[in-house]
Every structure is written in C-alpha cells, then in structure tokens.
C-alpha cells in the first residue's frame, strides 16, 4: 500500500516535470497510440474509423500501432516509441512510475471488468478452477490481469503449485483466441477478459456459445489508456477531453457502441488496487 502511494506521488511529479520540458513540441506532430488485444483488435475497419475520428477532433495525424503481445507494446511504450497506449491494468501498475493514467473506459456504467473462467460448453462438470487440475489451460497473455494474473492467483489461493497445477498451459496472446482455444477443445479451460467475452457473445454468438462461464472473478479496474513519458501535457489533456467527449457526440457514440463501451472516464490509480493486491499476493507466494 505504502509503495503504491509513493509511486503515485513520484509519477505525479514526473508528469508535471515533463510538462515544461516537452511543451515545445509542435502541435501538429504525430500522435502515436499503441493498442493491445484488451479489446477485439482484429477490426481493422473500426480502428481506422476511430483513428479518423480522433484525427478530426485533435486536428493532427494519429498512428495506431498494433502488436501481437502486451509485452511488445509495453516495450515500445517504455522505449519512447509510443505516446499513448491502451494496456491492461497489470502492466500499468508494474510500470506506473513511467506512465500516466489518461482515461479508463466505462463498461456497463462503471470503470470495472471481471475475469471469466471458461470451459467448453459440453463440460458440465467443472465448477471451479480446482476441477481443472491436471488439464490443459489457455492463458491470454502473461501481461494480462484477467487472462493470467487472476487464474494464477486463484491457483495460489488453492494452495497449489502454479507451475504444475495444469498438465499443460499455453498463451494465445489474445482474449478472443482463448475463447477459440476452449471452444475447439484445444484447451480444457481458459481465462478471459469478461468484457471481451461479453462482446464476443454479441458479435460472434456461435463461438462464444461453444464455451461456458464457470466463474466470474471480482471486479477490477478496466484496462486503462495511459501516456508515456514522451507524451506532451497538452496532448494528454486534448486526448482526455476527446475521449471523455465521445459519449456526448453522436459520431463518438456510434464508435463507443462498436467498442461495446459506454464512454471514458477520469480515474485515480487507486482503481487498480484490486490488481495490486493480486501482484502482492503472488509475489509473496
């Protein structure tokens, strides 16, 4: 608890410090935004429309950068190759000293989401993660809270060895693919972002229908949009305002509907305390 508060204070200081230093950058400079598979990132058409929307509102060129793993986006973010990124709460907390919280999406009216434990729809027996001992399990990404941290914590909570609990486990590097892996029977169970599963249930009910939710975790802070050290203060504020304003703008509402989100909100780092608890618990174990 004490550590996080300190980090937050340091981050705030860093952010204010960077404001004066980098405000000289041209307003018309390119804004680089990284996106991870925290949402359904295979909709190229949608991403292009969203980019166009942001460009017109921010009056500057925007580049969306997609990478197949959280790790790659995090490396780019920390390596000053990105100005902003939509990442998971877990890496945000890990690298909070170098990142600034910009906005947190609102899902079902609140900036929260859950991790779902799913199995194949035909598996009627599994009642909890304990029943999946010695089976094959699909994680989404080692840097994902819902797709890795949560099930890891659940295994620890059972007093089991996280390394040997599953007979075999693998990463699909995207939540949607966890659903596919479980639906095809490649994995006996999987951990998936609840928001992604819910959205898939609407967009691709056939695929989602072949899986069954065994349990839902408690709620955690929704994957946030963060700014790197390279982001200018003015850009951050402008992006914040644009994102917050989407819910009040017909065009923005349409885009939000496609994202299956209600809007974006201003949040404090304390929102991610739940994830911090998991990190603490696991690093202690």
């Amino acid at each position, binding site marked *: 608890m004490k550590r996080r508060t300190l980090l937050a204070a340091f981050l705030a200081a860093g952010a204010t410090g960077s404001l004066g230093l980098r405000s000289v950058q041209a307003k018309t400079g390119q804004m680089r935004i990284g996106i991870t598979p925290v949402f359904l990132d295979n909709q190229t058409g949608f991403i292009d429309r969203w980019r166009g929307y942001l460009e017109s509102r921010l009056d500057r060129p925007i580049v969306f950068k997609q990478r197949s793993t959280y790790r790659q986006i995090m490396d780019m973010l920390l390596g000053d190759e990105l100005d902003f990124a939509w990442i998971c709460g877990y890496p945000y907390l890990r690298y909070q000293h170098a990142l600034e919280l910009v906005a947190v999406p609102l899902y079902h009216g609140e900036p929260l989401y859950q991790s779902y434990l799913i199995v194949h729809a035909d598996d009627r027996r599994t009642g909890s993660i304990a029943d999946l001992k010695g089976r*094959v399990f699909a994680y989404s990404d080692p840097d994902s809270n819902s797709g890795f941290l949560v099930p890891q914590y659940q295994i620890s909570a059972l007093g089991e060895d996280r390394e040997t609990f599953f007979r075999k486990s693998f990463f699909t*590097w995207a939540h949607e693919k966890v659903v596919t892996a479980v639906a095809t029977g*490649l994995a006996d169970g999987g951990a998936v972002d609840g928001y992604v599963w819910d959205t898939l249930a609407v967009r691709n009910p056939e695929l989602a229908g072949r899986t069954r939710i065994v349990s839902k975790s408690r709620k955690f802070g929704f994957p946030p949009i963060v700014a790197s050290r390279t982001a200018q203060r003015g850009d951050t504020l402008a992006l914040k305002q644009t994102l917050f304003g989407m819910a009040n703008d017909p065009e923005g509402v349409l885009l939000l509907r496609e994202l299956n989100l209600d809007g974006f909100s201003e949040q404090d780092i304390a929102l991610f305390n739940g994830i911090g608890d998991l990190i603490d618990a696991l690093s202690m174990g």
Partner: protein
Amino acid sequence: MLDNLSLRHKIPLRIALLILLVAVAVSGSILLRAHEVFEEDLKLSSANMGRILSRSLTSALLHDDVWRAYEVINTPSSLSGTQGALQAKIVLVLDRNRQIYVSTKPDQYPILSELDSADDELAALSRKLDDALSLEPQLITGPPFRNLYVITPIESDGVLLGTLIMGYSEEIFTQRFTTFAGRAALTTLLIFVLLVPVAAYWGRHFAEPLVDLASCMSRVGSETAESLECDLLEIRGNDELAQLNRQFRLMLAELRDKADLERQMVAAERLAAIGRFTAGIAHEINNPLGGMLNATNTLRRHGKLDPLTAKTVNLLERGLMQIRDTVSALLVEAKTESHPLTHQDVDDTRTLVTPVAAGLSVQIDWHNELTGEIELASTLVRQVLLNLLLNAIQATGEKGQIACSVRCVNDTLCIEVRNSGEQMSDETIAHLFEPFVTGHDSGRGLGLWVTYQIVTGLNGTIEVSSGRADTLFSVHLPLPLQEAA
C-alpha cells in the same frame, strides 16, 4: 445363333463392337494414366505441404508456443474455400515423446494424449514411426490405412523437435478420380454414339453385295439358268468383292450359254433322228410306190380299160402321186445341181411372194445386198428364202411388217427374216423345225422342216429368236471355200 445372323447385321455389329473395344481401351489407358498422375500429384502436394508446415512449426515448438502451432496447422484448412484444394483431414504435431502436442481436432486428439490410444489407424501409424526417420516427408498409404499419411520430422539444427503427421482422406482422391472417370465415360459413350451410324453405313455397304450374291447363288441349281434373273450391281474396283461379283456374273452367263447349247444340241439331234427316220420310211415307200406307178402306167398304156377300171386306175394314180409328192417333200435333196446364186435369184423370190403379201396387205422391207455370183446352189437358197418369207407372211397376218435382208459377211451368207407376228412360246420354238408341226390350220407343216434340212445339208445354221416386238429367223450358210480357191 450369332452364326446364323445375316452379314447385313453381323458386320455392323462387329464394327460397333470394335469401336466400343477401342474406345474402352483408349479411355482405360487414359484413366490409368490419370490415376497415376492424380496419385503423384497428391503425394507431391502433400509432401510439399508437409515441408512448409514443418518449417513454420519449428519456432513454435522451440518456444513451446502451442497456440502458434495450432494456428500454423490450421492455416491450410482456413484456405479451404478453393474448390478441389488438397485438404488434410487431420493434422497432428507430436512432441519428442510421441505425445500429441497439438492437433486440428483437439476434441478427438487432445493435447498430451498418446498416439496409440487415439484410434487403431493412428496406433498402427505410431508403430511405423519407429522405423528409421529421414528428414524428408514420408508417405504412408495402403492397408491397413484408409487415409494417406504424410509424416514429416520437425527439426532445428539437426535436433528433432517433433513430428508432423498429416492425414489425407482417400475420398479426395476418389472424388477427383470419379469425376474424371465420369467425364471419360461420357466421352467414350459420345464417340460410340457418333460412330455407330458410320459403322452401320459401312457395314451395310460392305454386306449388301455379299448378301445379294448369296441370295442369287442359293437359286442356282434350283432354278434353270435361263430363268435366273439376278439384279447384281456391278462393283467398281478390283478388290476381292468386285472379283467375286464379276466371276459370279461370268459364271451365270456361262451357265446360261451351256444350257442354250444343250438345248440346241438336243433339238438338233432330235431333228437328225427324225430326218433319218423319215428318210428310211421314204425309201421304203418309194420302192413299192415306183412299182405301183409303173403298174398303173402299164395298165393304161397296154390294156383296153373299161370306164370303171379307167376311173379306178386314175384314182389310184392320183393317190399314188400324192404319196410320192409328200415323200419327196420329206426327202430333201441337198445336192441338187444348180447355177450359182445371184442378186437376181433373190429378187425373183421377192417377185414370187409379192402377190401373197399383197393379198394380206403385208409390207416387206427388202435388203438385197448380194453382188456377183455366190457359190451356193441358187435353187436351195431360193427354196429357203421362199419358205421363210411365206412363213413370215403367215405369222405376221394382215397388215403385218416383214423385213428381209440377204448379204454376205466373211464367207458366210446371212439371211435374216423378221416378222411382226405374235411372240412364240419356248415350247413352240423347241419343236418348230419338226415335220407336220404347224402354228396354223393351212399347210402341211413341212416348210420349216424342209428349210432346216436344206440349211443343215449345206452345213449352215438356222436360229430363231422370238421377242415381244418381233420374231427373227436368221440363217447362216458357209460359202464353199475349196471351190472358190
């Protein structure tokens, strides 16, 4: 049963059979080749696919990335939209321990399960894996395997990481081949259907003359040569069929000639026999007749006859004279001394018959082409010509037409007398030259007999041909050469 079938059907049937056999043989060989090509193609494509996939799988296995491996082995099936694309039924990746690392059908072949426990076919395949592993894709087909399997090792820097197994359903092959075979069968059928009319035409064209020949030949023997009328068309060319046709027609003609000759010989012999018979009788009659005539003559010259006796003697004498006339008519003397024949002799004959012809309004078309003296007895030739003309006038009846021609051709005197009378039957012609045969009431029926005797006596021939339009008597008399020389 087929043996009794007419060539008319047999030949087209055989040609059709031949066409069918050829078509089937050609299609069969094409199918055989197609089968090989399809098989080669399947093996090549699947081996190539094995190589490509195994390379892509190397890094996934090195990094133990199950999901990546799963995506790699599913790549081919995600392209399944293309029709007829070679589609693996099942793709399996085995790890170093021969356990299933990942498969395209995880529900059937789950991760970390043993290959042996999957199903019988894969268990058999597992035993095959124990054989020496090469780095090249290995093809496994044939019983007990229902599918074609391609086994490709996945290696990195010479270290075996795992094994890729791809199973292709034989159905792909069967389906492709069946489609092709169906098309080939259709083509064969089409060729057959198109060629059968040609076969029928050729067959008939070839069989027809043979059939005609056979049907005509079957009548030889059962019918007389003269009545055998066959409409045998002449065949062009000089092939065996044309030769056969020609020879057969030649044979028919010879048969007809032979029959003619036989008939003539029989007639001539009969006439000769009758001639000898009548001559014998005539001599037997002439001797007592001469005596009797002498006796009546003596009676009248030396005896004083009372009226009754004188009347009786006269009656006897007239009867005996009539017998003598008849007998002498029967005895034709061919060696009568006479002057040579001249143009005038022939014209004299015309003068003799003209009144008779005029009485019946018969027209005579006269062609006398003789010149100079002909070394033939004029009396006899005139007798012959006269008889023929009178006979013609009688045959042609009122307002008839007669054509007479007398000329010399190559040391032969030709006399032709044509009349427009009714056609004579074969039966009538057969006995025409016999004595006392007559086609009408008047006359003794000795005219043609005498004519015949004279002609044969002069070593000549006489022929009759009677048609619908007219009847022709032609006489050929050879000129005595030795006297001319």
